[in-house]
């Protein structure tokens, strides 16, 4: 990729909504500089339809992604994997060039 961005990993996690806080704390503990949340997504996986009812969060998913370096990405994916043994979710890792404001270069 050719851009003036920094080569990083994008770790996207779909998780059942009530476990989002757990994923956030996994990311925080792994030392990410930030994350972005898509608070309300729905879907289907091997646990069946998770189509979102308004009156319960049980069948809602949330999505969160972080841009981070490879080592942290690995740490997160290992922790998150444990979580999705028990709770609905999937972990996706891809390459991304990230453009930060100058004073953020150090991250």
């Amino acid at each position, binding site marked *: 990729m050719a851009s003036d961005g920094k080569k990083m990993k994008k770790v996207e996690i779909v998780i*059942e909504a*009530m*476990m989002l806080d757990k994923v956030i704390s996994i990311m925080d503990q792994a030392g990410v500089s930030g994350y972005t949340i898509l608070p*309300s997504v729905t879907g289907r996986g091997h646990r*069946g*339809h998770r*189509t*979102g*009812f*308004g*009156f*319960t*969060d*049980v*069948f*809602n998913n949330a999505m969160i992604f972080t841009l981070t370096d490879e080592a942290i990405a690995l740490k997160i994916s290992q922790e998150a994997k*444990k979580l999705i*043994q*028990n*709770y609905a979710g999937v972990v996706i890792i891809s390459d991304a060039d990230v453009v930060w404001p100058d004073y953020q270069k150090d991250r």
Partner: protein
Amino acid sequence: MDANLLTNLMTPPILFFFFGVFVRLIGSNLEIPPALTKFFSLYMLMAIGIKGGTAMAESGLGQDGMIVIGSAVLMSMLVPLYSYPILRIRLKNLYDAAAIASCYGSVSAVTFIAASSFITKLGIDYGGYMVVSLVLMESPAIVMAVLLATTVRSKEVRGTSVQIQRKSPALPMKKILHEAFTDGTHLMLIGSLVIGAVTGIEGKKAMEPFTGGIFKGMLSFFLLDMGLSVASRLREMKDVGVFLVGFGVVMPILNGVIALSIAYFLGFGMGDAFLFIILVASASYIAVPAVVRYAIPEANPSLYFTMALAVTFPFNIIIGIPLYYKMVSVIWGG
């Protein structure tokens, strides 16, 4: 069944429930955005809490109230205890048995609302402490289920270790209790109840046009939405299976009869007895599943949620309410 059945079924809110089921079954694109569902359900909790609280402020708890509440809490622990062995007869996943048992120990606020409109219309009174009972039946049922699940887990560890990888990292009981007591819907109901009790007659007057006046309209929307959801869950019915569907229909009757006996022997008033039966006979599809999903991830939420919402809830609305009323009115001579 007689005219009472119709009395219950022929009101706009209940008809909107059936309409919702119908609409989803014929594949319409009618949708209620989740934010609105949240509005309607928070509204319901506020309205019922304020109503119960202000009623309590007027009449106090009294000894009658204490007895009813005590019986309610007791039943919310007993129902899971005797439901679990029944469920084990057929269920291989014992976590499912624990989770389902928990839902039936707890209550459905909407069934309670429908039932209380029903008897209010018939001119029958009941105590403000019935809402307190409603509130207090949630947590014990959850605790029972978690205890059951913990037993299953410890047995599993001692047994074959095949499934161990999937086993949940045992959540500390403290965390689970925290979830159970701080669940949003649970708190909203408690908070409104307390606020109603504290502000009393003044509070009632201030809130009346909101929590009273437009209540039937908001309930219509909420039940429309419930109807849509119930119909959506019907496609999961094959996963639920005959045994569990049967459980979802028979259990409310069994629970209802037990509740009726207790109410009779303890000398409840007719209105209190009827609503006590409703509480015991109904099952939770909001608060309990939210906590149980967290606390017993090994259980399949499709089962317990679908049973409580798509089997027992409509059963109670259509058959249960007039049936329990019939029973009560025969015995209490209403």
